[in-house]
């Protein structure tokens, strides 16, 4: 049973890291979004993600890191300890880039939560059930923006293409598991990489078709190793800002 809990802790860590990093990136839009309504929408989504991160990291700590809290995991680890996808730490860029990044991730998350929702461990199932409702809304939001911009003006169309070109290299490792992930997949507890990739592709294809955007091919460099702590330089900068308050005032309450 102990090894089960360790496996779940590892799964919770990467679910939590993904949610934490994308949540922080989205929160950077607060006060900067193109219009007031969208500012609130992005902040709402950021809050949902941070809420999910909180639940997952709490579970990761409970099952695998004795004497640590979710805050310790969020604020007192180094970049090399983070297991989030490199896609999610990429800078916001323009609004189109934020939307493309979000859309690619939301599609993945829906497929993940639909599977985790059925998990035997009630903590995993509970977090996933709640998160699935949230992520379905996120997906609807990012999908409709993707189509609106892709099928919008020549300018917005060009920006979606540019964003997709910049981000595509980070998509392949969505379907790359570490040792624990591979074991969980072999036990059919999380989606297998092949079927996950296939279903993800189906999910994004219909939206890109509606948006009038071609999906890039596979003949290029792809990033690798996120789940084992490989990251781009951007994560370090993000963490510096995200962690400074907790590190400057350890144990601070507000």
């Amino acid at each position, binding site marked *: 049973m102990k090894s089960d809990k360790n496996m779940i802790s590892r799964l919770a860590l990467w679910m939590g890291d993904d949610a934490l990093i994308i949540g922080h990136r989205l929160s950077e839009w607060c006060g900067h979004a193109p*219009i007031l*309504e*969208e500012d*609130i929408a992005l902040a*709402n989504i950021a809050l949902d993600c941070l809420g999910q991160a909180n639940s997952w990291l709490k579970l990761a700590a409970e099952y695998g890191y004795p004497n640590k809290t979710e805050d310790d995991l969020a604020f007192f680890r180094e970049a090399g300890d983070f297991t989030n996808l490199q896609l999610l730490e990429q800078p916001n860029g323009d609004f189109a880039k934020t939307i493309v990044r979000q859309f690619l991730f939301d599609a993945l998350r829906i497929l993940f939560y639909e599977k985790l929702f059925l998990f035997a461990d009630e903590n995993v199932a509970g977090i996933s059930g709640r998160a699935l409702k949230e992520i379905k*809304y996120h997906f*609807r939001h990012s999908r*409709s923006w993707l189509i*609106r911009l892709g099928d*919008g003006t020549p300018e917005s169309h060009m920006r979606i293409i540019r964003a997709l070109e910049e981000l595509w290299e980070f998509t392949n490792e969505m379907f790359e598991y570490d040792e624990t992930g591979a074991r969980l997949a072999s036990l059919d507890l999380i989606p297998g990489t092949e079927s996950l990739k296939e279903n993800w592709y189906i999910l994004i294809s219909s939206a890109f078709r509606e948006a009038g955007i071609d999906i890039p091919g596979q003949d290029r460099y792809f990033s690798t190793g996120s789940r084992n702590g490989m990251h781009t330089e951007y994560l370090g900068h993000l963490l510096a800002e995200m962690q400074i308050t907790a590190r400057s005032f350890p144990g601070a309450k507000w």
Partner: protein
Amino acid sequence: MTEKNQNWEPWEVFIQPGQGAPHEHAGNVHASDAEMALQNARDLFARRGKVLSIWVVPARMITASSPSDSGPFFDPADDKAYRHPKFYTVPKGVRGV
């Protein structure tokens, strides 16, 4: 999308707080299309408390009476007591009237 609108127009938002309750005006949002209006309305007005349904309507589709109409429109209603439903009592337990 068939209709492309580059000027974001105001949409009026109506929310239904409970089963059988009427949709009530909640405020307005800017949006370029109906789906965006619905999502913006959800984010602005349905974050807290219970909401069952949202309507969004382009503000330009609403025809409103003007202040100068108010005399002829509304004053005559004041002095006709027989129009007011106050000659019977509503039974206890009747809700939503």
